[in-house]
Every structure is written in C-alpha cells, then in structure tokens.
C-alpha cells in the first residue's frame, strides 16, 4: 500500500514538474483546451476576439487595447525581453487583472479554470508550441537594495541618465516630450505611465516588481528592457525611486538632465 502511494506521489510530482516546466512546450490535453475555449469564448472574446487577435467588440472603445495573443508578445512576464511568458506569468495576469484598464480581475476563478484559460490562450500563437522558443529564461534580481533616501537619490540620477524623462516626464507624470507620439507594436496610440499615480501603474506594488519591468521590458510597447543597459544595483535604485514617486514618500535631489551632462 505504501509503495503504491509512493509511486503515485512520485508520478504526480513528475507530471507537475513537466507540466510546469519552462524548458519545453506544454501540450495540454483536449479536455483542458475545451474547457479553456468555452471560458474564453464566453468571457475573453468580447475584448480579445474569438481568434485572439485583440479585435473584440469592446476593443474599439478602449484606450488600452486588449492584447493580441497571436504574436506571443506579452507585457507582464518574468522572462527575458522577447521571450514567451511562463504559464505562471499568464496565470498571474488573468487572476489579478491589470487595474485602470478594462482587464478585470478573475480571482473568483478556480486554479483549474485559470490553468485551462492559459493553455487555450497559448494556442493562438504558434510560438508556444515551437521548441526553439524554449527553454524560457527568467530574470534574476541580484542583491536587493533597501528603500532608503540614498537609494532613491541614486535612482533619480539613473532616471535622468537613462532618459526616462523623455517619455515619463521630468516629474514622472507621463508627460515627457515623446509621450504624445508613441504607438505600440500594432500602431495603437499608447501613453507612458504616470509614475506618480499608483492606479495607473501595473504590477508595480513594490520596488521588486518595478525592477522586473526594467529587466523584462514590456513587450509589444515602446518600454524596452534595460537589462543590458543597467546593472542590477542601478535597476534597484531606479525601482526605489519610482516606488517613492507613486507612494509620495520619497526624497530626491531634483537633478536636471542638463546637470548630468
């Protein structure tokens, strides 16, 4: 009896590891895909379209356009720029929603429902079944730098050096000189986030989440990855600075771009 239990647990664990793996494409069973399709067609298609191309009937009335799933480009990931998201990344986005947009939270869905949705959404892009896209590499965070005045001041300097102000404005209010001319990969107008407004920022409830955005970039938007351009410590300092802007508790020397030069 014990042996049967051990074997069962071992097989289950192996299955979970394979299913949750970022090393190879996950192939969901037909029943899961059918369940995911039923949910998607009823709920998600109103925005994302029946074919996942982001062209649902609601899209025309939304400033932040629904994601086009057919390209496999996703904003919110833990993976390197240009890579596919992990299943966990997609699950988190579905479950938590992206506030201040029409993407509502689906936290009342069961884990099985979200899993089925993730697997069905992945069928819209052939990239998810292409073994050349794998393994997925998740970012590393390095050594966290505490949220201190010193770090915030350094972050402000990085903000200017990296020319974040060109899009996000000197005060981070999303009104930089390039702000009004930006478009995403689908030529839809897109506004840089107001970094001082916590309701306008997505997945930025901590310096670590903001660090992740610098490291991964927001694929499909003009926000690139700075992983090659910044060190981990610079991204932590910049994350602390942005966090201080949105929580209105920070302190920084108002360094102008001219002073950096």
């Amino acid at each position: 009896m014990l042996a049967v239990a051990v074997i069962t647990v071992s097989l289950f664990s192996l299955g979970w590891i394979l299913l949750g793996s970022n090393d190879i494409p996950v192939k969901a069973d037909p029943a899961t895909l059918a369940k995911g399709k039923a949910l998607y067609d009823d709920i998600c298609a109103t925005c994302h379209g029946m074919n996942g191309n982001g062209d649902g009937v609601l899209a025309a009335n939304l400033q932040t356009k629904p994601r086009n799933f057919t390209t496999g480009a996703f904003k919110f990931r833990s993976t390197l720029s240009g890579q596919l998201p992990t299943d966990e990344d997609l699950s988190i986005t579905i479950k938590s929603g992206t506030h201040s947009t029409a993407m509502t939270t689906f936290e009342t869905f069961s884990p099985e429902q979200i899993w089925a949705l993730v697997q069905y959404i992945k069928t819209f892009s052939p990239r998810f079944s292409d073994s050349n896209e794998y393994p997925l590499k998740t970012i590393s965070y390095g050594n966290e730098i505490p949220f201190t005045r010193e770090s915030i001041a350094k972050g402000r300097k990085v903000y200017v050096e990296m020319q974040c102000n060109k899009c996000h404005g000197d005060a981070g209010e999303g009104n930089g000189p390039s702000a009004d001319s930006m478009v995403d990969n689908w030529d839809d107008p897109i506004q840089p986030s107001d970094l001082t407004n916590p309701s306008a920022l997505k997945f930025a409830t901590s310096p670590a989440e903001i660090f992740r955005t610098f490291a991964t970039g927001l694929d499909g938007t003009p926000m690139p990855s700075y992983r090659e351009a910044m060190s981990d410590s610079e991204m932590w300092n910049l994350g602390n600075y942005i966090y201080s802007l949105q929580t209105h508790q920070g302190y920084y020397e108002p360094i102008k771009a001219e002073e950096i030069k």
Partner: protein
Amino acid sequence: MMRCHLQNTSVPYIGSFLAVLILSCTVITPNARAIPLFARKYKTTCFTCHVSVPMLNEFGRRFQANGYRIANSEPKTPTWDQLPIVLAFAVTPEVIYTHSKDNITNEVIDSRNFSTYGVDMLTAGDFGSRLSWFGDVTVDPKEGAGIESLFLIYHAGAINFTLGKQILRTLFPIQFTLGTDYLAQSYDSFADASLTDKGVPIGGTNTLLLEEASYAVSAFGWVPDILNGFRYELAFTSGNDGVDLNDASALFLSTDQTIYYANNAPLKVGLWYYTGKHKLYDLDSTGAWIYDGHENTPWRLGIGADIYDPWVKRINLNGQYMIANDDNIYNGSSFGQQRMTGSFLGLTAILLPEKMYSYGRWDHKEVNELNLSDTQWTMGLKYHFVPNVFLSGELAFDNPKIPHQLDNSTTTLSIGTMFAY
C-alpha cells in the same frame, strides 16, 4: 429610475448645478472609478461593462445576464471587513430648458428646470457562492428616500432566481437617454385613458413599464453554448407599484440571441412579451379608489435587434418594434380595446474611446382608438472627463398629435452630468 422634475427653479439651482459640476471636475482624481460597486469589486473601470454609462456593452450584458457575476466564477462569502460598509453612490443632476408650442392656439411656453435623480446609494455583494444581493436606494432632498430596487439572486449556473424589486431584463435594458423617454417602451395605456376618470387601474398608474423596477420573482440566465450566447428571463410580476396580486399581475418573458456575424461584431435579435390582468378602479366621491367591476387583460410584444458595424465596431444600431394591446379600458365613451403600435431606431457612435460619444434616436407611436400619434427625435453628445464623471447634452423634439385636441410640439435641451463614486 424615477425622476423628479422640479418646476420654476432657475438661478439657485443652476448655481448649484455648476458648483457640483466644477466640484466633480476638480476633486475627482483620474484614478477614480465609474460604476462604484462592481468596478471596485472586480478592480476595473466602468468601460469593462459600459460603452458609456448607462449603456451596457457586450461584456456588461453577459455580466448582467449572469446575475451580476462573471460567468462560471464562484465568489466566496466575504468576511466582515470586506462588506460594503461604505456605500457607493451616484449623482446625476441636469438642467432642462423646454420650449413648448401649441400649434392650434399658437401659445408658447418656455420653462427652465433643474432636475436630479437624487443620490443613488448602491449596494451589492455575495453571501457565498450561490446567493447575492443588489440594492439601489434613492435619496432625494425633496421627495425623501425610496427603494429603487432591492433583490436577492440565487445562482445555479445557467439559471438564476431573483426575488424583489428589480428592472426586468429586456434586449435594451438601458440605453443613452438623458431627458427623454422611449415613447413605445414607456407606453402606458392608462395614462392616456385616465384623461377620463374611469377605467383606471389600482394605484392610479400601476402597469408594467420596462424601464422601471417592478416587484417580481424571476428566473433568468445566460447560455453561452448556443451560438455565441443566448439570454432568457421568465418572470412573474405585480407591476411597478407592487399592488396586491389579486389586483394586478403579469407574466413576463424575454429572450435574445447573440452571434458574432463578422469580424467579432455582434448581432443580437430578441423579443419580449408579457400578459397579465388588471382590475380597474375609479375614484369615488370621498376620493377613495373603488373597484368598478371591470378588468383589463393587457399584453405587450416587442421585437428588437442590435448590431455593431463589422469594420471599426464604433457604430451601434438598435431598434425595436412594439405592440401594446389592452382589451377593456375606458376610451372616453365606452370600455373596449385599445392598441398602440410603435418603434424606435437608435444609433450610437464612439467618437473617442473612453471619452466622447454621440447618439441619436427616432421614436414613434400610434394609438388608433385615441387617434393619437407621437413622434420624437433625440440626439445627444457625452464627454467623459474621467470614467466616473461625464457631461452630457441632449436635444429632443417631440410632437404628439390628437386631431382637433392636441398638437403640441416640444423642444427640450437637457444638459446634465454624472458623478459616481
């Protein structure tokens, strides 16, 4: 919602209106939300469910048809700290300028009114995965407080049950209208018949006006597997004023079918029907209502469609044809049949996403027995400063005609705003 039109109040109320408007525009931050209840609950904006408040979009209609829940979701019973102790509210004041001309006597009447829906205090929530509630209490400084709607919902998958005062779910539960009513959908035969003092139903105006809440028990739901979604509702109601079931009752049926006919653009066709029985009452010499021995068996039938253009999906066309039949009401000389036929055709255009909208509507109704016809044109423009604050203007032209009795054209300009939090 019931409206309270307060007559002959101009300067002080216009001042109040402007103050509210300015306050709304300056105090509300861009992160404020639109429909406060469900936007808060689901951490989203009003545009998830509305084209522009109050017109529902495709997601909002599905949400409503699922009993104000996302399909297949199973909310948990909230803990005490999650209960909506702080109620959401909405204020919708408007200024109405009316120019009315009697085309028989050439008499002209101009009036300027300040109108308000009062303050709507809203509440909704869950008692676990199966049971939820919805409530809307209006507090008006002149008329006091009143329950607009309050009902329980039992969720059982593709079928939900409700009990309480509620707006029954037709193909067009609410559209863009600001200051004007839908002539056909608002048709109340008794309002016309009560030009006499005979044949009036209990309560004076009790009937079933679909844009107002009625006391009902209802079974309704959403079946996503039939093409791209089938909605239905079957209700038993005592009408808007909630009188004794012995005096008035009706059976209500409403269905519609959605298909994505091209490029994710939906086409929806539907019908609703209700039939019932009213006892007719008259005022006696003491001012009391007495049953006059007559009963009316009314029925109403509406057939409608709603379609988005398949190219940019920014144009919505909707229309409805309706027949209203009463078999036994007093028409001025005798009791007998009275039938209204009417229709409306509306257009909504999204000019700027989440910002600016325009709409127009043509309404018409005819009542042969009264020799009455009424045609109304409406056009409007709405602008959202932020999702939960908008400014709206509407121009309406109405021309009811009863030959040799009534030819009274009215032009109405309404300027209103809404603030919800």
